[in-house]
């Protein structure tokens, strides 16, 4: 089996901070000297590129081009460390080995994928080739919320699945469904990340409660933060504000990733 590890980051419901967490976690992993790829498989509502400072003009080739045979996976990989913008957080990635494999944000190309469907053999070959061609230590997959077919494929090929949930009853029930699916697909490493926990909560008690409920490790509990909202995906928050309690809590997930 190839050496690079696939880490899927998923949440059953939208708005959990999945893309923000994925981008920051991938960046922290790259700062540890690892070779990291980030794939946006949320083809119908892509967004993680924003956190890396990309827009339609800067993006170049996309996963959509690869799926339509118009680009190789090597051409899709966008080197973040070599194409930095002025933002303080992202600037720390200078020279780091981090590539983004973005999905197109052109409405026509999203429409085309939705109309024609997806060749999953090609998508899977692309993901596995990305690991080999870029000699990645980690490939992070930012998935679409819920359980669609792309997400199920991502889970099936993962070495680790990080499930993000808020301390909310809807999230808890949905996460339970995803955990069942992941267990039935023999994902070797499953862990949870609680995000947007109200500061008034007892985080240790919350962590223990969720761990007991799912019989899975909770990698960390991230507080609900107005500072994150104010950042508005404009920069990689954990790199820009490394001492912030949210960033510190996110760093708590790193050992789980590095020990896969």
């Amino acid at each position, binding site marked *: *089996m*190839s050496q690079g590890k696939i880490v899927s980051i998923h949440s059953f419901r939208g708005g959990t901070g999945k893309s923000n967490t994925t981008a920051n976690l991938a960046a922290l992993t790259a700062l540890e000297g690892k070779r990291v790829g980030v794939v946006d498989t949320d083809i*119908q509502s892509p967004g993680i590129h924003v956190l890396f400072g990309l827009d339609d003009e800067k993006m170049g080739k996309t996963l959509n081009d690869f799926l339509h045979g118009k680009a190789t996976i090597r051409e899709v990989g966008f080197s973040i460390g070599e194409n930095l913008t002025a933002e303080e957080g992202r600037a720390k990635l200078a020279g780091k080995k981090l590539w983004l494999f973005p999905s197109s944000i052109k*409405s*026509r190309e*999203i*429409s*085309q*994928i*939705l*109309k*024609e*469907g*997806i*060749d*999953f*053999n090609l998508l*899977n*070959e692309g993901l*596995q080739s990305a690991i080999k061609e870029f000699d990645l230590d980690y490939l992070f997959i930012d998935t679409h919320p819920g359980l669609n*077919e*792309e997400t*199920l*494929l991502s*889970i*099936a*090929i993962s070495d680790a699945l990080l499930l993000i949930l808020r301390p909310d009853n809807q999230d808890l029930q949905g996460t339970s469904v995803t955990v069942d*699916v992941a267990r*039935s*697909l*023999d994902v070797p490493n499953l862990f949870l990340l609680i995000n947007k926990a109200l500061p008034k909560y007892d985080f240790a008690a919350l962590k223990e409660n969720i761990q007991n409920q799912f019989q899975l490790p909770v990698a960390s509990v991230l507080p609900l933060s107005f500072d994150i909202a104010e950042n508005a995906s404009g920069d990689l928050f954990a790199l820009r504000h490394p001492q912030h309690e949210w960033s510190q809590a996110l760093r708590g997930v790193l050992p789980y990733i590095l020990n896969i």
Partner: protein
Amino acid sequence: MPGIFDRLNKEIKDSQRQEGISPLDIAQLPPAMRKIMRLMLREVQAPYALICETMEKVAEQERLSRSALDDALAALTEQGWLIQIGAGEKALYKVNLRRKEGSALMSGIWSSLDTKLKKDSSDKS
């Protein structure tokens, strides 16, 4: 009105699209076969020897004997979930994932949006 060959061609394409395994199919396989399919997903294609090697690492109570493994590979190939290239000890197996079908409804929404955005942009310029 489409001719008979157009219809036949569509039927063939439709049946080809239905072939292949989905992640939910994988979830319902017995543990040893799931192990094979996960290996195949990661390797994309694997020689028979590597599959045998992987089976050796499966927990003893779930491990398939060589003949049972051969039967399992034959069944997965028959089902269209694996594609076999070559035969016997030199065979190479490739995973065959089911294609995600397109949705005319979702596509229609995006096409309409695309048309409107283009119109708005040309009205402004």
